[in-house]
């Protein structure tokens, strides 16, 4: 990256687990990772933000419910509404739903077990800030690991998401958690905010991941920032 573009912030909440992997993924994609702290009152001039996986605030009350009111979320919500790319992975997706940047909610897996496996997904939207480097309908495999990953929303919201093409990822070869309509990830109306339960940041190197299929999230957003 040149000209200071491609500064991607990764927020660390108390209980975040995957923040260092997310920063590593940004670096491998060619961007500059910037560590953000949950008590930061500004975003340090980053161009995009990743809310990582983990168990923020112990997942007390509800997953993501307390993190949603962290000081860093105030400028983040404001800038996300103004168009800044934001990616929420797993717990980060839960935070985005709790803060109503994305509709619906994540609930206990229907089988009640924590699940940890490599998961195949179909990419259904390639014009979001985080998915432009994928082909329409491309199938990717990235790790999935959660206990509360069941995506739910009322029928009207689900119908609207389908009608507006806001389902970005769908589970393929078996729904792992009872998510409605096999939804693994969604976007907001503008396409700059994306949330999903599976973990692209764990699939960026063959040494440590099942594939390198996750790298495209980070190269997509970096390209968008260059052309913005």
């Amino acid at each position, binding site marked *: 990256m040149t000209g200071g573009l491609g500064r991607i912030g990764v927020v660390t909440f108390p209980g975040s687990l995957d923040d260092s992997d997310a920063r590593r993924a940004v670096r491998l994609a060619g961007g500059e990772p910037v560590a953000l702290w949950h008590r930061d009152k500004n975003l340090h001039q980053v161009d995009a933000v990743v809310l990582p996986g983990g168990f923020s605030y112990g997942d007390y009350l509800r997953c993501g419910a307390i993190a949603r009111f962290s000081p860093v979320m105030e400028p983040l919500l404001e800038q996300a509404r103004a168009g800044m790319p934001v990616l929420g992975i797993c717990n980060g997706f839960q935070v985005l739903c709790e803060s109503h940047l994305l509709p619906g909610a994540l609930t206990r897996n229907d089988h*009640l077990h924590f699940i940890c496996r490599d998961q195949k997904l179909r990419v259904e939207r390639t014009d979001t800030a985080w998915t432009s480097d994928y082909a329409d309908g491309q199938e990717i495999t990235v790790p999935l690991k959660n206990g509360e990953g069941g995506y*739910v929303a009322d029928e009207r919201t689900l119908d609207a998401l389908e009608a507006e093409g806001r389902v970005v990822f769908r589970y393929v070869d078996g729904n792992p958690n*009872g998510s409605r309509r096999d939804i693994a990830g969604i976007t907001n109306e503008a396409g700059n905010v994306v949330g999903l339960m599976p973990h692209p940041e764990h699939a960026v190197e063959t040494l440590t991941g099942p594939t390198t299929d996750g790298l495209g999230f980070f190269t997509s957003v970096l390209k968008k920032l260059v052309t913005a």
Partner: protein
Amino acid sequence: MLKPEILDPQGQAVQRALPRLGFEGIADVRQGKRFELEVAEPVTDEALARIHELAEKFLANTVIENFTVSVENAGDTGDSGSGSESAQGAVA
């Protein structure tokens, strides 16, 4: 409480365990949450409205949950001696 249309796998697991314990005839179980808030001052309408607001904004996720707020005297809850009122929200 989770809204009726939201699947409650925890409640279902509890319901399935009941026959094994000899409790027959329970058709459905839904699991919820209860918060007890102790209020230092008397619970005025204004205070109750603020508690309702915090329940709606924070304690409950109204996307998937319904909630109610009710006022009880602290003594009623077995928390004797304090004399203060508590507002109780039953939240999913």
